[in-house]
């Protein structure tokens, strides 16, 4: 019973405390981060959310440009070494000082079994301590984009992790709970005050944070709200100050209240169509004995039969950005000159099909997720209708993401849509993971097994090319070859929309990441 009265008393105290000049920012997103362990899952939202608590050596600014975080400057003394000069007087949330040992420890932890972040430091063979505030990342071969790749490479405290038996990330093999899954100790501008998994997380500012204070928050409350309608209602009723994503159908409702505003942008994720180009006979098709997608004319016919303007205006509410190449504006390596779509021209599509030997078209199966990308299923349905006009009958299978990814990643698919946002925000990832010929760790998401030796070669050179101008030329060449070959059919980048209460200022960055350090609550 004592416990009860203590609880009641503490509740009264909190009520009393909130009377003071507190600036609380309450926000909601669709899901809760999977884990507090910064090395557990390389997923965009989890990493962005954890970026409030943990920090990398090199961070991202308001326009995604590289900015100093835990490193004040970085340079390449030679092509296979990156030297990072660490920021002095950085404190972890528990008061420990940050130093070179923590960097060495964190990189080793990221490479350990159970970590999902090994890819960010895959090229690093060793981290050498020069002194307490200088580290050298030694590489097997030149890697010009290491700083780009490591903006989510979060630093943990060696002493804290070892003390709490969390020196290794949680591994499914030992089936044990890891301390770092439910507890956090970073260097970021905010620290966790309380957390109930899947329900609510409260942050408070890290008073010893090194950076300039650009926010005026005293408390932050994060709540995942899964249902779109409820999330929007929570904003409109004033229970939260900001929600994202705002579903398209509610955009007008939010900007129309006069008390809220809608911030918009474009995703960095490009949505595209995969076509199986490797099998000699398609899995789900009426064409027997050959694979029509091996013929570029057929791929082009499909491409030119898809009316992206119609999809933009009718399905995406005018918010999408139509894509002509596989990388989005804002991604390093993006080339505006190439970003032009082939003309929508169903008549020439029909001609191309006739030339290729399919005057009456053919029948194929298509896979589509229905809960992964913005309007994914509707886009697929529209494509089905558009392809029917040129005689290609598509049997659509739209299903939930677990089922969908299981099917397409086992290459058990003929036609499908997919989205790709490079975690490094660099075109090399798109080339390596989506466009290169599948082999070992390469081309994992090249579901249609498009293959071009020339692009594979170029990708290898891009990986090691240190000169930025030359590197850009190589990327543009690779993207241009892929475009000519029609390896995939690029569709668009979906629009981003955040709903914010007036009197609260947040910065919408195009990677859909909310940075609490830039949030101001004016009244």
């Amino acid at each position, binding site marked *: 019973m004592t416990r009860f009265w203590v609880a009641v008393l503490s509740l009264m105290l909190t009520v009393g405390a909130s009377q003071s000049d507190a600036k609380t920012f309450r926000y909601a997103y669709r899901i809760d981060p999977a884990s507090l362990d910064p090395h557990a899952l390389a997923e965009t939202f989890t990493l962005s959310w954890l970026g409030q608590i943990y920090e990398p050596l090199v961070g991202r600014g308001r326009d995604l440009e590289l900015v100093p975080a835990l490193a004040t400057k970085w340079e390449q003394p030679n092509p296979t070494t990156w030297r990072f000069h660490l920021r002095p007087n950085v404190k972890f949330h528990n008061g420990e000082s940050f130093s070179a040992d923590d960097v060495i420890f964190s990189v080793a932890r990221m490479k350990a079994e159970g970590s999902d972040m090994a890819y960010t430091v895959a090229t690093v063979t060793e981290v050498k301590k020069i002194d307490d505030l200088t580290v050298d990342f030694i590489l097997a071969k030149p890697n010009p984009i290491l700083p780009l790749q490591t903006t989510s490479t979060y630093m943990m405290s060696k002493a804290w992790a070892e003390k709490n038996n969390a020196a290794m990330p949680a591994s499914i093999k030992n089936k044990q709970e890891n301390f770092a899954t439910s507890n956090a100790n970073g260097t970021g501008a905010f620290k966790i005050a309380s957390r109930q998994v899947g329900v609510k997380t409260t942050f408070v500012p890290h008073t010893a944070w090194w950076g300039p204070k650009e926010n005026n928050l005293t408390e932050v409350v994060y709540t995942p709200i899964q249902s779109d309608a409820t999330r929007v209602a929570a904003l409109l009723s004033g229970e939260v100050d900001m929600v994202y994503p705002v579903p398209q159908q509610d955009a007008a409702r939010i900007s129309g209240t006069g008390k809220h505003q809608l911030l918009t942008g474009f995703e960095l994720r490009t949505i595209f169509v995969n076509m199986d180009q490797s099998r000699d006979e398609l899995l789900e098709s009426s064409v027997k004995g050959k694979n029509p997608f091996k013929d570029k004319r057929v791929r082009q016919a499909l491409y030119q039969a898809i009316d992206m303007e119609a999809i933009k205006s009718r399905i995406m509410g005018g918010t999408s950005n139509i894509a002509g190449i596989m990388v989005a504006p804002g991604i390093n390596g993006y080339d505006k000159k190439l970003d032009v779509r082939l003309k929508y021209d169903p008549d020439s599509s029909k001609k191309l099909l006739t030339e290729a030997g399919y005057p009456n078209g053919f029948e194929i199966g298509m896979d589509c997720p229905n809960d992964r990308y913005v309007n994914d299923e509707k886009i697929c349905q529209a494509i089905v209708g558009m392809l029917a006009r040129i005689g290609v009958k598509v049997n659509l299978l739209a299903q939930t993401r677990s089922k969908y990814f*299981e099917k397409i990643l086992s290459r058990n698919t003929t036609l499908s849509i997919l989205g790709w946002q490079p975690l490094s925000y660099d075109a090399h990832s798109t080339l390596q993971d989506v466009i290169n010929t599948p082999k070992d760790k390469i081309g994992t998401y090249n579901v249609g097994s498009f293959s071009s030796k020339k692009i594979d070669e170029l990708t290898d050179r891009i990986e090691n090319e240190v000169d930025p101008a030359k590197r850009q030329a190589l990327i543009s060449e690779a993207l241009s070859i892929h475009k000519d070959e029609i390896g995939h059919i690029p569709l668009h980048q979906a629009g981003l929309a955040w709903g914010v209460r007036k009197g609260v200022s947040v910065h919408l960055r195009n990677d859909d990441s909310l940075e609490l350090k830039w949030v101001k609550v004016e009244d």
Partner: protein
Amino acid sequence: MGSFFIQRLSQTVFVVLAAALVSFAMFRYVGDPVNNMVGQAASMADRETMRRALGLDDPTILQFLRFLRDALSGDLGVSYRFGVPVGRLLTERFPATLELSLCAMLVATLLGIPLGVWTALHRRRVSSHVLMLLSLVGVALPTFLIGIVLILIFSVWLGWLPSFGRGATVALGGWTTGLLTVSGLKALVLPSLTLGLFQMALILRLVRAEMLEVLRADYIKFARARGLPNRAVNYRHALKNTLVPVITIIGLQFGNIFAFSIVVETVFQWPGLGLLVIQSIQFADVPLLAAYLVMIALGFAMLNLCIDLLYAAIDPRVRTGMVSARARS
């Protein structure tokens, strides 16, 4: 009585095992959890290694036996999605769902019975017709739509009640309750109404029908002939006799309410078991789903066992196997 008890108990164990096996057979169709557990940078080989480490390649029956072995030693496994023990997640979420279900049942009963009596006694009044129409709406409209409409009216337009969550909760030992704080009570109103509306309509209609039946009975006529006041006739004699089937229905519907909470919890972001389960289905979080389904099966089986034993205690014919009371009802 002893052999009867053992017989029923062994049946219960069998039912729970069968439910667990069926749910394991279904997990093949919820999709591949591995692709949700790793980021996009993981290679196909990494995924395969993980799949093998999780034992997802093994035949269903082997996975099932492994689950049974671990569960019997008290280990329900670690959630694929959250990386924390499943048992802890379920116990953390259980109070929210139970409180919501109880409140919904309370709403349904406290509104359903008096309104049912009212509509039976004043059949021709306009208010009765309106109530009957509304109860039809309660039965016909899908729960999520009612929830969204209530949110729109009471949260967005009027700003009286919260649209999501549980409000502030107080921890009493291992139990978190929202019943002791103002915000917790306010947060309960809309979800309880939404969840209870269907049951309320059901109870209202049942009470009305039973009441009309009873009011025609001879003993009511005699009671009136004796000059008893209306209130005594209606409430002491008529209503009391209608309550037996109503109580049975309330008992049976409680299970339904618990299950229907999945929809309501999603609409109101109510942090209970239903929300946890719906998210786990999307993620294909097999350990959590397995534990939840077995827990629910166990709950229903135990409830039925208790009812069976009660029947047996009341009616000796059941224990001697002369007649099955359950089969009749």
